Structure formats: C-alpha cells, structure tokens
C-alpha cells in the first residue's frame, strides 16, 4: 500500500439495520490524497459502509454501529462529536444527481450559507472556484441564475460535486457518482476525480470494474457485509489474494 498519511482509520466496524448485521468487523485505512474504490455485488454493504464515514446512516432509524472510525485522530461515533461539523469535513456526492430546485449559483453557495458565511465576495469567488474545479464553469458561467434542474444529468452531477467542494471538505465520499450518466459524462467525472485527489481523500463506491481500475489507487472488495480484501488497485486486479475477489472482478459472479 502507498505510504501517504492516514486520514481515516476504521477499526472493527459492525453495522446493524435492526437485527440484520449489514457489516461485520470491517477494518481498513484511507490515506490522504488517494482514491479508494469500494467494489462488490449489490447488497454487500459497500454503500452502507460509505455512509458510515459521514454518519449519514444516523438518518435511517433503527440502525446501530459498533467499532471505531477515526478521522484525523478523532473518533466520529462519539456523543461529543458534532455531526454537522463532521459532514462539512466529509462531503458526499450521491448516486443520483440531486441538485436543489434553486439556481446554479445558489446550489453551490448553499453549503457556504448554511455554514454561516455571509461575505458576498467570498461566496462569489468560492462558487466560481468550485465550479471550475468541477469542470463545469465554462458551461454555466453565463447562466448562473438559471434553475439547476435545467442542466443535463452529467452537468447536474458535476454541479453536485461543485456544491460539495464549495465548503472545502477534507474527504469526499462518492456513491456510484457516474452510474446514472452516459459514457461521455462518466469520463468527465473520472478525469475530475483524478484532478481532485491532489487536494482530497476520496472514497468511491462503484459497480464498474473498469472505473475502479481507472480511477483508484486502492481497491476494497466487499462481500456479504465483510471486507474480503483491500490492496493496491493494481494488485487487486492483477493478482488478487482471495478466490472470491478474483471471481468477482473476472465477472464469474456479482
């Protein structure tokens, strides 16, 4: 594995939906400035795991977490931690593009506004910077006051990425960010991920093996709520240590 600084440490994490144990004893680390891909068949727990990292699962009733997740030396599943602040630090991009029914500008400015920033010039410069980072600026700079729902699916998803970047998170979680997009838009998002890892720690869930191979530095294979194997992406795809991993990435099941 690469020698980057550890950003997130997950230790022996269990997760329950009611009585159903969706994740069992997951331990994995994520390094700064790296892209980690989570792969595995549907229902294997990879999205659940991703949502543990910014405590989005708190919103689902009747769920329970055991074990530790440590972000920058701070445990996130403690009562002392402020979930609102955690979610600003750990941004999220969802599977389906979900811009607000507001203008393009207001979508990106939203995160800044809710975090208490009132300085108009700062917001404006931050909106422009985020849209540029998300490779959307040139397409929308003349219509920032238009409704975001008028954008194409690919543009909407890049807008959602810009919206997440605007609050300058440290970690970016992406839950199949390109699954609802066409190949051209997908390529754009993948190029973007490459660009973004210079500044962020990225964890991405994907169903697309090629995508995992293209964008990630490390790959983790989940199966039936367990982490079967996590290693350098090259290793996973050329020389997997586990038979199940090999079967999955070669398309024998899943």
């Amino acid at each position, binding site marked *: 594995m690469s020698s980057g600084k550890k950003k997130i440490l997950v230790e022996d994490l269990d997760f329950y939906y009611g009585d159903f144990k969706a994740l069992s004893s997951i331990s994995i680390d994520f390094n700064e400035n790296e892209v980690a891909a989570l792969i595995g068949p549907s229902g294997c727990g990879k999205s659940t795991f991703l949502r543990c990292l910014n405590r989005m699962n708190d919103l689902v009733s009747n769920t329970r977490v055991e074990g530790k997740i440590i972000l920058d030396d701070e445990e996130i599943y403690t009562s002392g931690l402020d979930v609102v602040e955690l979610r600003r630090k750990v941004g999220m991009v969802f599977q389906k593009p979900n811009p607000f029914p507001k203008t393009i500008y207001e979508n990106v400015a939203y995160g800044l506004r809710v975090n208490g920033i009132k300085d108009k010039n700062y917001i404006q410069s931050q909106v422009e910077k985020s849209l540029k980072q998300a490779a959307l600026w040139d397409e929308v700079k003349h219509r920032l006051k238009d409704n975001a729902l008028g954008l194409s699916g690919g543009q909407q998803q890049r807008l959602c990425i810009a919206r*997440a970047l605007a609050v300058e998170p440290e970690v970016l979680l992406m839950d199949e960010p390109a699954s609802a997009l066409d190949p051209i838009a997908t390529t754009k998002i993948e190029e973007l991920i490459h660009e973004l890892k210079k500044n962020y720690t990225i964890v991405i869930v994907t169903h697309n093996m090629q995508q995992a191979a293209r964008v990630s530095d490390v790959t983790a294979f989940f199966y039936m709520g367990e982490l079967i194997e996590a290693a350098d992406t090259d290793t996973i795809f050329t020389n997997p240590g586990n038979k199940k991993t090999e079967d999955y990435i070669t398309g024998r099941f899943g």
Partner: protein
Amino acid sequence: MEKINFYTVKSKTLFQRKIAEKIAFSVFRSSAFICAGALGILFYFLISRGYSAINWTFLTRPPREAMTEGGILPCIIGTFGLSIGAIIVALPIGVMAAIYLTEYARDGKILRIVRLGINNLAGVPSVVFGLFGLALFCIYLKMGVSLAAGALTLSLMSLPIIIGATEEALRAVPDSYRYASLGLGATKWQTIFRVVLPAAAPGILTGAILSVSRVAGETAPIMFTGAVFFTPSLPSSIFDEVMALPYHIYVLATAGTNISQTRHLQYGTALVLIALVFLINIIAIVIRAKLRKKMKI
C-alpha cells in the same frame, strides 16, 4: 409444453370479455359524469334563480327594509374578514405542527396520540366547533360575538386540512434534497427552512387556500361566535360583530319575516358565496402553477 386448447377448456370467449370491459367502463364513466353533473345542475339552479338579484346595488349596499331590499355588502366584507382572519391564525400553526409531525417527531405513543387528536379534529361536526368557540373565545376569553372569535373558531376548523395538506407536501419533497443539505453540514432546521419548505411551498399554499374556501362557506361555527342576524354598520375592529354570507342565506331562508319575498335574494347571496369560493380556488391554482414553474417541479 402442451398448449391450452381453448375449445376444450371451459373459458370465456373474447367477445364475452370485451362486453364485460365495455360494461365496466361505461359504469365508471357515468359515475364520473354524475359527479361533474351534480355541480353543473347546482350551478344552473343557482344562476337561473339568483342572477336576477345580482346588480351593482346588491354587491355594494347594506340590506334595507328588514332585509327585503338593498344589498349584501356587509356579508361579503364579513365573510372576507372571517376567512382572512382564519388563515392568518391557522396557516402558521398548521404548518409548524405539520413540520413537527413529519420532520421531527419520533414514532411513539405521544405522536400517535397527537395524530389521533388531529384526525379527530377533522371529524368534529361544525356545530360543535361553533359551541366550543362560543364557550372558549366569546365567553371564557371575553371576546364576545366578534370577528376575532369567529375567525379563531374557523381557524380551528381549518387546522386539520392545513396540517394534512402540509404533511403531504412535505412528504412529497424527495429525501435526496434533505440528504444533500445535511451532507453539506446544514443543520436539520436549516435543511427544513431553506430546502424542504420552499420545495413544499406550492402544496402548502394550495392546501391553505383550499381550507379557507372550505371554511368560508361554513355557517354553524360562526352563527354563535362571529356572525349576527343584522348589523347596519361595517366592522371597524376585530372585536365587532359581522354579517356573513352563509349565515345571511340561512337567516333569509329560515328566520326572516319575509321568507318567500326574499327568495331571489337568497339565491343571489348563494351565488355570490359560490363565486367567492371559486375565486379563492382559482387563486390557489394560479399560485401553485406559478410556484411550480419557478421551481420546475
């Protein structure tokens, strides 16, 4: 695999099945037409009998000569005031209650009791609201028979409708908006106030306005609390008593001294009331369409 032999197996012919379909559809169609037709007949009835009463004097003058002459201006103003008063009170309370119920409340015994209460409020007969309003607002709170007491009674009556419409509108807002907002470090309240409420606004407003149009035509809740048989002056404060369209119809048709002579005035008043309710509904539809267009929902 063996094929079904339609000649040996007992089966309905295609003709029989199509006949059944035709019969079913015509029954459904006539049901729909009966509903629309009922409204049509009602309109025809009101317009044909009431329109002779409608003229400028009728709409802009108070009644004269023991209400056999003159107009219904105080009733129009009164109904208008009662409705506006009811919405001013009921809209904020109803919306806040609905936000609590859909966004904050945790499932449990207390929530079930609160819900049961609200649902039952919707089932309380309007005359009971009237008596309750009389006891609470007019007597206990010493408001007397007044615009304020009548409006408050009507607002209680419209609460379940507003709460229901608001809950529905809030639930129709996709959770993905909530997740996106919370994921950016917004608090729950910021999420509700900045994302969920604006997206639900068309539905909430429509529900609120429709609830007004419902209560605007109520007689029983205001007959003890706000409306009076006759008052020569227009209300100058919210603690004045008022005349109101539905109660005026009731008075003319049952309690006046010249019931048969004022028949056309009764139909005229009913026509004005219906027109007012329709106007409110049309305003609701226009507002909803405008807001939806603005948000592209």
